[in-house]
């Protein structure tokens, strides 16, 4: 299976590659992860992963700076229907717009806005930083074999902004942090996690295994 791991100079690619390889080996799948931003490679890949660490506006700028990259992503995801996973800012970029340091247009694949977290409980600090549990809003293959709820497994979050979708049907799981934080989104062949599966030990590896097995 060919995986395109998009490198647009926005963060920690190696951890994601390593985690994908561990997940694949756990399920006896042979994968070939190509790291880069070459439109041709993206179009030929079976699955696409868009990681991202950083500020929304800066990541959008880097993404758009690579000629043909957003077009190739659009073709692979929308025309060919290949499974896509966005991680952290890579998920947030799917929104209509982001409000981190001014308003910036996102890819608009999933209607919504990325806004600063403002917990109702003022004692809660921002960024939302650390390990939190997931609450399922609807069943989804990406959550297979993951213990959910208060006594479930934990995922690692590291973000000050969060995805507020227009359509709540796009939300697969949330995390509680003074309000419901969008943790996993999915629509058709497009999925995203606000947390870092590559840094989330047991839960993270299982989610990546589920992504590699996912046939939307």
């Amino acid at each position, binding site marked *: 299976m060919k995986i395109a791991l998009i490198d647009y100079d926005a*963060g*920690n*690619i*190696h*951890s994601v590659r*390593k*985690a994908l390889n561990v997940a694949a080996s756990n399920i006896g799948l042979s994968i070939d992860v190509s790291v880069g931003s070459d439109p041709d490679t993206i179009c030929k890949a079976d699955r696409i992963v868009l990681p991202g*660490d*950083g*500020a*929304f506006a*800066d990541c959008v700028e880097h993404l758009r700076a690579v000629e043909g990259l957003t077009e190739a992503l659009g073709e692979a995801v929308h025309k060919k229907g290949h499974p896509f996973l966005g991680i952290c*800012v890579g998920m947030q970029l799917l929104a209509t717009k982001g409000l*981190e*340091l001014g308003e910036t247009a996102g890819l608009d694949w999933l209607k919504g806005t990325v806004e600063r977290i403002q917990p109702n409980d*003022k004692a*809660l*600090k*921002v*960024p*939302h*930083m*650390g*390990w*939190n*549990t997931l609450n399922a809003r609807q069943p989804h293959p990406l959550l297979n074999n993951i213990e959910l709820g*208060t006594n479930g*497994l*934990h995922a*690692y*979050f*590291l*973000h*000050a902004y969060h995805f507020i979708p227009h359509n709540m049907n796009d939300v697969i799981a949330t995390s*509680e*942090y003074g309000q419901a934080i969008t943790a996993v989104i999915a629509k058709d062949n497009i999925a995203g996690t606000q947390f*870092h599966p*590559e*840094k*989330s*030990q*047991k*839960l*993270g*590896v299982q989610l990546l295994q589920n992504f590699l097995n996912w046939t939307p």
Partner: protein
Amino acid sequence: MLKTRLIPCLDVKNGRVVKGVQFLDLVDAGDPVESARAYDKAGADELCFLDITASAEARGTILDVVRRTAEACFMPVTVGGGVRNLDDIRALLLAGADKVSINTAAVRDKTIVARAAAKFGTQAIVVAIDAKKVSLANESERFEIFTHGGRNPTGIDAVEFACDVARLGAGEILLTSMDRDGTKIGYDIPLTKAISNAVNIPVVASGGVGTLDHLVDGVKLGGASAVLAASIFHFGTYTIMEAKQHMAKAGIAMRLD
């Protein structure tokens, strides 16, 4: 709900883990990559990696050590030590750091925090504050920032500085009491509390842990979002899981996956 984090810290000098008392008298505590792998397996919530290599030429190797350390674990890694500019931050993030900690460079010029946050996001920028109590016994408590391993006083008030960097976009404060570092008599609770109460970003308590109750105190009395320790774990006094279970028994929400 969000859990309190327990963070083992690797002080790395010339590619080896070392640990000292009040930033001096360093003893060898092993290979950083091996340590990272062991702490990952043991259930640590994050790893803190501080490069305390002094000479500029020896620093070149640090990116490779960071890369191998990050590769060895499935938990987030904060890297600090000698970060001077945005290029240093970018290089560390690309090598596998999830967060980068800035110390002296932020003391010298606070605006680096704003520039770094705009570039890499507030969540990736940690400001490390090394503070000492400077008030006399009959005065109200006052803490001042020191640099260069505690040798250089700056005249900067630690609480004011913490508020400033939080406003400028720091995502977290790594707060070390230089009076307590390596002493095993517990965190400086008044310092931890003063900074935690003053800022709305997470504060990591550091410096002085000798018993598991000290970790509890850092959270319950100091208001820290995360607690950091080095020697008690490096030298096997306690395991990560013993520490987490102890904290959980004391009523702190911990991840025990």
